[in-house]
């Protein structure tokens, strides 16, 4: 059995590399035609925050020794500007000028996929381990086999049309996704400096990953996802009562399941976080020395994100809302919408504290739904994280309906945009309707996945309690 599994996983591993290379080649081929595809101006792909065109404008202004934030074009981080800026400079010799950047985004995608795979593998291992330690492995093996969700998630990330589109669409969301995944991987593998680095960079560049603070701490404190910790305590007690029942259990109790919060790692994480934050801030301050300091940077980047100044259409719902809402309600609704993200943090953290990776997925999905300038790159990230929990979410409802919904919206949205903007035969409501449908599908996805996960926990709890009752 073990041998077979190993062979199977080896085959799957080979498959993963093959498909990964294929996806890279596919991307490079597509990026060669990116001038014709014209994806960089699609509102679904590049937002005011992530558009590389705006970054190029900021870099150009900086070259003229003006502040890159003068004018409302660039709203990203100064670090991104100094790293990616030279890639956007127009070169007369090389006809295809942005090749450098598409290479960067392809590499970022590949690294993200590899890290997702590594995270997924450790998650699967933890899954099996947990089941074994609860003595449920036999029960489950009869029903379903454990899928290598890491490989699948990596491939889903690489082959998701959303990821492909955002990686060749000249925007910075592949980099954002990379940092989020780095942080997740670092936390799940116990590499505290890496986790801190990923989290600090992701939140510095794109603000919303700030909410990942809680799951990262849970990951470091409690370790990877597993059933509720109460069950372990019970099973250990039971195991002590009946040690002869399971031979394997004894071997496992040698390596006890962590049920206590390890403060040491969390404190280390805090330490590393403060180091990275001060490092990033010092770098930014050096960059912004002549352009108004850090205050100006915060105003132009985070202020721009929080106050939804740009009302150009995107796949979120906030742009149209703030284009239509009365001015004196604007601040109120700004607060309401942003607080909506924060409101759900605590209940989710209480209810899902034993599944920090899943919590990462839920937080990312919520923030990509409610953020002020969403793009399909965000969906690409949380969708592939969703695949990591294939084993747990096998009984999720409406999955086919959701799949159809995502496909339908991603087909309808460009059509409606074309009808409204280019042909002028439709109006803004057409496009807004698809944005709302998209928001609804995301809501259903989040709610259904959360309840499926809770049901799974319930099931495990019941199975654990069966011998008792």
């Amino acid at each position: 059995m073990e041998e077979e599994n190993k062979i199977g996983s080896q085959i799957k591993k080979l498959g993963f590399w093959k498909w990964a290379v294929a996806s890279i080649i596919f991307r490079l081929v597509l990026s060669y035609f990116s001038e014709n595809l014209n994806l960089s101006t699609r509102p679904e792909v590049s937002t005011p925050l992530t558009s590389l065109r705006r970054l190029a404008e900021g870099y150009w202004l900086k070259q003229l020794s003006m502040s890159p934030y003068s004018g409302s074009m660039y709203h990203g981080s100064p670090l991104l500007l100094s790293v990616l800026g030279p890639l956007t400079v127009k070169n007369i010799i090389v006809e295809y000028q942005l090749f450098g950047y598409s290479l960067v985004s392809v590499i970022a995608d590949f690294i993200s996929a590899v890290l997702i795979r590594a995270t997924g593998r450790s998650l699967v291992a933890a899954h099996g381990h947990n089941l074994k330690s609860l003595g449920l492995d036999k029960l489950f093996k009869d029903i379903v086999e454990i899928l290598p969700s890491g490989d699948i998630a990596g491939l889903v990330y690489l082959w998701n049309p959303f990821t492909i589109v955002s990686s060749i669409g000249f925007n910075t969301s592949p980099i954002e996704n990379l940092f989020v995944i780095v942080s997740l991987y670092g936390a799940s593998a116990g590499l505290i400096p890496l986790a801190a680095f990923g989290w600090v960079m992701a939140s510095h560049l794109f603000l919303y990953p700030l909410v990942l603070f809680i799951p990262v701490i849970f990951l470091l404190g409690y370790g990877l996802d597993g059933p509720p910790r109460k069950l372990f305590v019970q099973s250990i007690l039971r195991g002590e009562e009946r040690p002869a029942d399971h031979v394997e259990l004894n071997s496992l109790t040698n390596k006890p399941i962590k049920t206590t919060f390890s403060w040491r790692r969390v404190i280390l994480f805090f330490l590393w976080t403060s180091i990275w934050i001060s490092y990033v801030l010092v770098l930014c301050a050096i960059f912004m020395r002549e352009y108004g300091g850090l205050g100006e940077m915060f105003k132009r980047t985070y202020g721009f994100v929080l106050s939804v100044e740009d009302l150009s259409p995107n796949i979120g719902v906030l742009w149209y809302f703030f284009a239509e809402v009365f001015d004196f309600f604007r601040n109120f609704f700004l607060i309401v919408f942003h607080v909506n993200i924060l409101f759900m943090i605590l209940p989710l953290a209480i209810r899902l504290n034993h599944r920090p990776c899943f919590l990462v997925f839920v937080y990312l999905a919520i923030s990509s739904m409610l953020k002020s300038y969403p793009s399909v790159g965000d969906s690409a990230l949380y969708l592939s994280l969703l695949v990591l929990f294939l084993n747990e979410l096998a009984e999720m409802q409406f999955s086919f309906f959701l799949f159809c919904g995502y496909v339908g919206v991603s087909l309808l949205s460009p059509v409606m945009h074309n009808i409204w903007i280019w042909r002028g035969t439709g109006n803004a409501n057409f496009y807004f309707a698809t944005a709302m449908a998209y928001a609804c599908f995301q809501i259903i996805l989040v709610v259904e996945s959360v309840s499926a996960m809770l049901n799974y926990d319930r099931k495990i709890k019941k199975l654990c309690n069966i011998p008792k009752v």
Partner: protein
Amino acid sequence: MSFLKSGFLLFLVLFSASESIAEEDKVEKLNEEFTEALLLRPLPDRKVLAHFHFQSSAPPTRTYGRHHYIFPKSIYQLVHKFQVREMELSFTQGRWNYERWGGFDPISNSNAKPPGVELWADFDVPQDQVDDSWKNLTHALSGLFCASINFLEHSTSYSAPQWSFRSFSGKLRYGMLPREAVCTENLTPWLKLLPCRDKAGLSSLMDRPSIYKGYYHSQRLHLKSDEFDTSKMSTGIVLEQTLTVVLQPNTFSGKISQPSWSLSSLFGRKVSGKCSLSNSSNVYVQFERSIVSEENELRKKHEASKNDIFIHDGSQSNPLFELSLPPIRVIKEVENLQKKGSILYEFPVEDYDESEPFDLELRWKVPVVWSCEQAPLRASRFLLGSGNERGAIAISMKSTRSNNVERVGSDEKECWLKVGIFQVVPWYVKVYYHTLELFLDGEPQSTMNIIEKIRVSPSEDKVSPGVMEIDLRLPCCVKTAALTLEFDKGFLHIDEYPSDANQGFDIPSAVVHFADFLSNMSFDDNLSTKVPILSKLQEKTPVLSYTEVLLVPLTTPDFSMPYNVITITCTIFALYFGSLLNALRRRVGEEERLLRGKAAKKTGPLTLMLSKLFSKLRGKPWEPSKTPSSSSPKSSINYKLVAKVALVAAIAAAWQYYFQ
């Protein structure tokens, strides 16, 4: 040596003292002055240019005091209140046709204006007060001229050019309203500034229907003051008011020849004497240099037959045209090697009165074809692209024939043409300045070689417009030069759209100026410096031209939808919040246990209701409990409901009562 030095110093001191004494004498002589003049010029495309020029001047307050009998008080107060050093306001309707009406002479340089309102002002206040002064000035002018100049108050609508416009620095503010409609309500307050209004003098020609039916109508007010200069050379405030109209004479005169016209046929009125307050009141008829050269050729042909041409240099003997009245003076432009000068015929209005009004008539004898002098490059601007998402602005410049004349340093190899462009773009047209591309004769060029100087202040959303000032250095042999800039169209809040949102938004004209070229007319007559219009023509003015106003259509949201959008979006948010919270809150096991426990007990109406609620929340159909009396709980529920409603109403009433 030292002796020599001290002697020289002494001399200098003496000299300067004597000069200052002379200066003071001059200053004391200064008095309020008002002059009026009308310049008429036939245009090549069978139209006539009429240029009214009124100038009032007030001596400096320091020497003259603050009471004036000619100079308009409102303008004096304006200057003093806002410390205006120089200001120009123009109301224009129609577009100046640079190809046919000329783009190189002083009149077109200073009177060809962009459509709508253009206002610029240079202040004499500390740097941090300039914006406030500008805002106050726009409001004052808006009240003074019955126009919506106050829209220039917002920081999104004006800009501070650094060097490309008027080469002032710092305290100049510039604003344009391309869509302002110009009408008599703007002309009447403008006429009120004249001492005789339109009751007497040349301004009585301004018959409203005839001046507004023209092809081009530009009413301008230029103000210059050095009141706040500390030096003694102060000349006070000079207010120059011009009205430039291009009219089509409606006299029929064949198809080839130029139409003959008279003042009465152009304006429908005649001049009955001068404004008695004006120092001079003249009518000039100008013929351009190409007509003059043609005339000379004709003369040479007829020289044998007509010997008396040189004896009477008057209109009667002219082979091309005939003027109904004899001019008092013929002013010739100084001719140099390259160009023939134009000719001005002067007619004073002073000697005419009601009984014998002044009416000048021009009759063409021979069909004449000529063309006007052109600026070295003819600039035009247009939009590229379609759709409401993005586009590009292109400024194209085509070379005209007069490219190679009057160039400074005309060495063929090192021949460069300096072109300055000043462009203001509203913030909702988000220009990507890094996409600036230059094409010479259709070939893309590296921007580094051609741009000599560039200053960009990019637009900030809802704060400031985008300003671009560029100095280009083009080779003289260039045929066409083009410059493109890409932009994204912005999306505005519904309140920011004007009432006719689907008409589109205007991008104000860009200013293209040629720094190497100065146009002026130089007259050999010394007398002409005393007449303001002639001295104005003699001033060296930089050649500049305005491009077209661009109309950018922007996407509109659905204006009727705010409530729908708010409610639907909020519903979605509520759906998210409610369903997620519900999913988190549910504890199936405990619910079941609770229900079981409840069912064991006697089911009262309250518990029944609770169980109903719980089962509803669980999504299962409610099974009525075994109790047979199903009607009584229902009625009791209703009773409870009524009691609750009554309780709430009572609380509300008590609340209301308490607060009253």
